[in-house]
Structure formats: C-alpha cells, structure tokens
C-alpha cells in the first residue's frame, strides 16, 4: 500500500485498459486473485519477461502477467505471496489521490533503486 493509514479516495484511469499497456512503477488497482470481490492497490514492479529474484533463484514473469508489490514491503500481501497476476485482473491505473484534501496529490510512477534486472 502507498502509505495509506486512513481511507484515501483515488482517481482511477481506465484508458490504459484499451491495450493493457502498463509500465514499471505504475500503481494499479486489481481484483485479488484469492478473492475476486476484493480490490487491491499495488505498484507494478516487473512486467512480463522480467526476472524476479526469489529465495530459490530467479523466476521469469510469464507473458500476460505482471509482478506487483506494495510500497510498504514489511506488511504487504502482494505477489510475493500469491505470485504474478494476469494483466486481465487490473481495473485501472491510479493517477491522483483526491480525498482527504490534505492528502491530495499526483501519484507518480516510481522505480525502485535496487532494480530488478537479474
């Protein structure tokens, strides 16, 4: 999750769903693969074809999937638990936080410094 202690309301962009074109660092909202009624918000860390370093070596993200992780790695239920998610589960890309007013800001694409290329 992106540092959200209380409920934030965000603005979701759906034009990216036309061609399912996402980039590294996009914050996306998707249906949880363990419970389709829940929606999760995480950041895309790796796209299809990238390698993710695991405890037992590196694994490749399959085609049509992406690897999502929360910004707060310590307490985040993300791809490190349920694996890469199909891009078809994504409902949209988060562009802005629109409520509460003191937290209004643009949500940017952010790439982690440690990188993921193997």
């Amino acid at each position, binding site marked *: 999750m992106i540092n959200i202690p209380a409920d934030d309301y965000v603005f979701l962009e759906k034009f990216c769903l036309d061609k399912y074109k996402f980039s590294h660092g996009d914050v996306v909202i998707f249906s949880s*693969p*363990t*419970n*389709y009624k829940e929606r999760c918000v995480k950041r895309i860390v790796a796209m299809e074809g990238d390698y993710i370093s695991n405890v037992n070596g590196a694994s490749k993200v399959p*085609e*049509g999937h992406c690897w999502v992780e929360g910004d707060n790695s310590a307490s985040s239920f993300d791809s490190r638990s349920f694996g890469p*998610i*199909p891009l*078809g589960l994504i409902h949209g890309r988060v562009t802005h936080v629109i409520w509460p007013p003191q937290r209004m800001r643009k949500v940017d694409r952010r790439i982690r410094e440690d990188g993921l290329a193997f």
Partner: protein
Amino acid sequence: MTFYGCKILTWAQFVGNEELKLLSNSEIFLVPAEREREREMSRFQQWALIVKEALDKSFLVAKFFCAVHVTSTYLCSTALVYGPSMLPTFNLSGEIVLLESISTRYGKVGSGDVVIVRSPENPRKVITKRIIGMEGDSITYVVDPINSDRTETLVVPKGHIWVEGDNIYSSNDSRNFGPVPYGLLQGKVFLKIWPAGAFGLIGRRPQTVDPALKVAEELNNS
C-alpha cells in the same frame, strides 16, 4: 368604434385571410416595414423549432446508445465463438452466443458452465471454455491426450477455477496455463443465437463425452 371596425375590414382585404391569422389584433395597425420585420422574426422562430426537434432526436439516439452500452457491459451481451477447442458444442467456423454477466458477478457459476474468460496469456483476448472445477475441487485431467493417457490430479486453489475446452485434443486451457483467477471471468454463455440452425440453450454437460475423458470424469464426480 365603427370607424376602427371599417379600418380592420379594409386591412383584412389587403393582406388576405391567411396573413390575418398570423398577426395579432394589435399588429393590424403596423406599417408595412414593421410587418416585414415581424415576418423575419417568425422565420427565426421556425428555425429554432427545427433546431429543437433535431436536438430532441439526437438526445433520443444518445439515450438509446447509453441503454445498449449499460446492458452490454453489465447485463447481457453477445460474442463470436470460433475455433476447434469447444467441438462439438461450438463448431469450428464460428457461432454467435449470448452471455450474461450477472451470474459471474454474484459467484453463481459452477462446474459444467460454459464461460468466457479473459485469457491469462494475453489480456486483450477472450476465450470460451467450460468450467471443470471451482476452488477447493480436486481435478483429475489428462495431460496430453494425443500422446499418452497420463493423468494428473490437483486441488484448485482459493479464488481460482479450472477450465477446459470440450475438445481436449485441441484446446489451450488450464492444462497449459494453470488455474484461472475468478476475477478474469467475463460472463456465462447460455444461448446460441447464430447460425439459426444451431439455435439452442447451452447446458452444463458437453454433448458427447469422449471415452478418454470418461475415466477422468468418473474420478471427478466421485
């Protein structure tokens, strides 16, 4: 008022009876130049009437498209199903089916339903398959029916479904890409509408059961 009565009569003879209907009582005393301006005004009013009618018609068309869009996205829509993976239920060249998204949204689908799912290998493609097992079910499937009889068994994980095509000899389904998250379901197919000869409801069982599948099926049903 007799003098004024005479004036009205002469004016009526001059302009003709039709003109008299358009003009109100006070306008009968207007001079010709002002009457010309009045005729221009009524032309503008006529044009305004045409524009209003055009806007009304276009709002009607817009409302129709909105209704079609809402129905198609949230209730019921159509799809073209083609390919060999669902023979003999759907034929090779293509059939148009009706699908409804209400069952999938409320979790009312089960084993045996033909569903349309977004492909986990390519999110821009949708595929039609039959649900073999829901979450928690133990699935036995023939891995490669063309080359061997080897079967494997697994339990469908939480939040996922196992889909297979009716024609397992030529179907790229969960045996290749694994269990599919339930969130990828787009709708349940319930009716075939084209070609007219193939019209009919889609049931929960495939129309013929391949003998190679019988073993797997019996294990699934027990």
